[in-house]
């Protein structure tokens, strides 16, 4: 917040609400994205296991995850759609000027989402009637579609960070657009792989974390063990990989966006033998308050030698770099990300060593406590990563070509603040309802797992959610009135629960 107040002196009044709104809607969309990208993959791993080993527990897990996926995908779509409106509602000048240079990535993203929406519909609604393996194979392209979608988004974002693929004409308009160059910008590769690994890792820890909580509460059956092991393994494998990718992206920033690197490491003056600060606060006079100072380390990390020169924030005019408050924010989010990333490695090591040694999950409760925390921690890490990326780019919306203040909509600040208020309220409701629904689903399942079969007709409409497709009998004119489409689906012979996919077909 105070970041913004500092900036406001020189920027249009609309900028503050526009930035707040963009940051809020992106920040919430990102909460859903890891599941959106990686849950299909994790579910498919489980599904495959179920079919190959004819394992009903695995199948049940896969089915339940896909029921969660249905709701989560919808929330991802609506929050994502808001973002595409916001490009126009908040940053019309950016799109008006640069749309034809970097917009194409979104085109790729659009058809990837298209494919994803279609395939997800088939997967979610195919459980009952499709042949088991046909059903599985129809969903196999899903993770690839998600990767294509990420390609588009990250392509656009990395272009904003290191724009290229055009020249400017006399009036400052882009011309000679080269699409290949605009898509494959210098930051694209590092950002893409770091992002993809983060998504799979986060989804893995989040899903595993849920079962870890169950485990801690004493539910130590095979169902919880499997629900924990599969996603946790995926995440644990990726954790060390992510560490290297993170190190790589940091070094790329050192080369390609030196001011962002300087902000992330709060380097004020260009020089060699630059110390590394763990946390701490940058003051507007360039001094650092608090934090743990490690001499020479920053230079060493950037170029493997204490003699490496690191560019400082003062290398560019104050108007062209993040403010001290912004730099502090970037520094903190960067440090939190790196810290959590490193701690997660220890957790993954613990798991790996114990598994190699004993062929089993660690017994101690501490392991499961840490695993449950890892889910939350990785989501926090993702948020931190994005704040590093986006705030570190300030004041530019297109790095070194267009300022955020030049891109903002001419709409009045009052309207934007109102919109911001409405959006916050709506999102709180939507996310609250989303969490509520998922928790309710899981509570229901748990009750059933413990042997309490819920009464078939709790309310007049109980059978409609996930109800059977209407059959002629169910719609027979007499069937109207309360409980319209027949009684409990579970009681109907043709729709009874099937023991396993492989079984009755």
């Amino acid at each position, binding site marked *: 917040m105070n970041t913004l107040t500092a900036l406001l002196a020189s920027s249009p009044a609309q900028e503050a609400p526009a930035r707040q709104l963009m940051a809020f809607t992106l920040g919430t969309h990102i909460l859903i994205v890891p599941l959106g990208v990686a849950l299909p993959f994790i579910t498919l791993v489980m599904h495959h296991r179920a079919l190959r080993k004819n394992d009903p527990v695995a199948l049940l897990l896969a089915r339940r995850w896909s029921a969660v996926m*249905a709701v989560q995908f919808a929330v991802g779509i609506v*929050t994502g759609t808001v973002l595409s409106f916001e490009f126009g509602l908040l940053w019309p000048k950016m799109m008006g*000027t640069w749309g*034809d240079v970097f917009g194409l990535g979104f085109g790729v993203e659009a058809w990837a989402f298209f*494919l994803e929406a*279609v395939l997800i*519909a088939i997967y979610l609604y195919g459980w009952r009637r499709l042949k088991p393996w046909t059903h599985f194979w129809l969903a196999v392209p899903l993770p690839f579609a998600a990767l294509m979608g990420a390609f588009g988004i990250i392509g656009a974002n990395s272009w904003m960070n290191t724009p290229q693929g055009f020249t400017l004409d006399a009036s400052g308009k882009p011309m000679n657009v080269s699409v290949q160059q605009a898509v494959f910008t210098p930051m694209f590769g590092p950002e893409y792989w770091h992002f993809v690994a983060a998504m799979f890792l986060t989804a893995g820890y989040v899903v595993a974390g849920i079962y870890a909580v169950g485990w801690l509460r004493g539910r130590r059956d095979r169902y919880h063990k499997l629900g924990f092991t599969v996603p946790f393994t995926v995440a644990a494998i990726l954790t060390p990989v992510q560490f290297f990718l993170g190190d790589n992206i940091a070094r790329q920033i050192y080369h390609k966006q030196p001011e962002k690197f300087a902000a992330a490491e709060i380097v004020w003056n260009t020089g060699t033998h630059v110390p590394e600060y763990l946390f701490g606060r940058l003051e507007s006079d360039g001094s650092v308050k608090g934090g743990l100072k490690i001499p020479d380390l920053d230079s060493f990390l950037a170029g493997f030698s204490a003699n490496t020169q690191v560019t400082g924030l003062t290398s560019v005019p104050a108007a062209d770099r993040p403010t001290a408050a912004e730099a502090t924010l970037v520094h903190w989010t960067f440090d939190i990300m790196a810290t959590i990333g490193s701690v997660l490695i220890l957790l993954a090591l613990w798991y790996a060593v114990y598994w190699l040694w004993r062929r089993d999950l660690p017994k101690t409760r501490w392991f499961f406590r840490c695993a449950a925390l890892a889910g939350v921690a990785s989501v926090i890490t993702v948020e931190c990563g994005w704040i590093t990326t986006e705030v570190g780019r300030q004041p530019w919306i297109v790095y070194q070509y267009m300022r955020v203040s030049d891109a903002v909509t001419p709409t009045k600040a009052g*309207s934007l603040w109102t919109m911001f208020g409405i959006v916050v309220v709506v999102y709180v409701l939507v996310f609250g309802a989303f969490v509520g629904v998922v928790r309710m689903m899981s509570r229901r399942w748990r009750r059933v797992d413990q042997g309490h079969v819920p009464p078939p007709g709790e309310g007049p409409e109980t*059978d409609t959610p996930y109800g059977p497709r209407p059959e002629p009998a169910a719609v027979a004119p007499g069937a109207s009135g309360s409980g319209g489409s027949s009684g409990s689906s579970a009681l109907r012979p043709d729709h009874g629960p099937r023991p396993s996919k492989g079984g009755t077909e």
Partner: protein
Amino acid sequence: MTAGVVAWILLLAVAAYACGGGVDYGAGFWDLVAGGTERGERPRWLIDHAMEPVWEVNNVWLIFVFILMWTGFPVFFEAVFSAMWLPLALAAVGLVLRGAGFALRKPTTRLARRRIYGAVFAVSSLLTPFFLGAAVGGVASGRAAPGVTASADVWANTTSIIAGLLAVAATAFLGAVFLTADARRFDAPDLERYFRLRSWFALVVVGILALIGLATTHKHTSYVYHGLTHGLGLLLVLLSLAAALATAWLVAGRRAGWARFTSVAAVALVIAAWGTAQRPYLVPTSLTVQQAAGATRTLQWLMLVTAIAIVLVGPALFLLYRLDTRGLLEAQTDADVEGGASRPGTSPL
């Protein structure tokens, strides 16, 4: 030349959204007016089941429209979103409520809560197309010119309001026709009658609104008005009229399934007529397709991306609709995810 092609692709995407999304909104509209819990239960039940697998897919058309706008015609995108700020912002909020309301209603078991989600879904199904229609009206009447900033008279004028109402009526028409066909497919004669009446009614309303629109907005939209009443534009309007009448006739008979195609044709043809009428402008009469066009290279790539989309998404979409109409797609029941089979300690049923 390239710009012209991309402009037609854009129009095609608009038509696809109007039809695909329109059916969805229409279903929501009928959900809204279906009456109390008791009376509305059966139509609501059909609406739920008919919409199920495809709403997310329809939403993507809108995203496609935006992308074609900002990549193909950046200046146009900027102009529309600056001038039409308020209706578009409200449409965005409506979209969130709608999608979330629909998706959350399904797995919610408690009746009171389901009612809330249902109401949110239904109300936003009415408001979203209204505001999107109003924005389109602003473009067609030339008010969304480059440099215009958001103010009430840009969109709160007769043209925009009539266009918004027309959009709502058209979605109601599409929704009712599709639901009639679904009722037939699921063999529910009472619902078939119910929605048949409503498709006729909606069609009459569309007709009345269109006439009012032509009469009252003649002045502001003279360019488009002229295009719609002459030459190719007129021909398309007449074809659309024919398709609409054919729909009215088809829903009455045993071939309600075909009415879906004619109703879609009716809407798509009107949109084609609108596009034809405002040639060569994107915003009559201040911004032509050529002026707004982005870099030629990009436009060529955009065509390539579209071609790939058609090659990849087409078959998938075809598969989806095919599986769906053959009844192979069906939501999981509670029993499925409760999985009696693997309940710890119990044997498979």
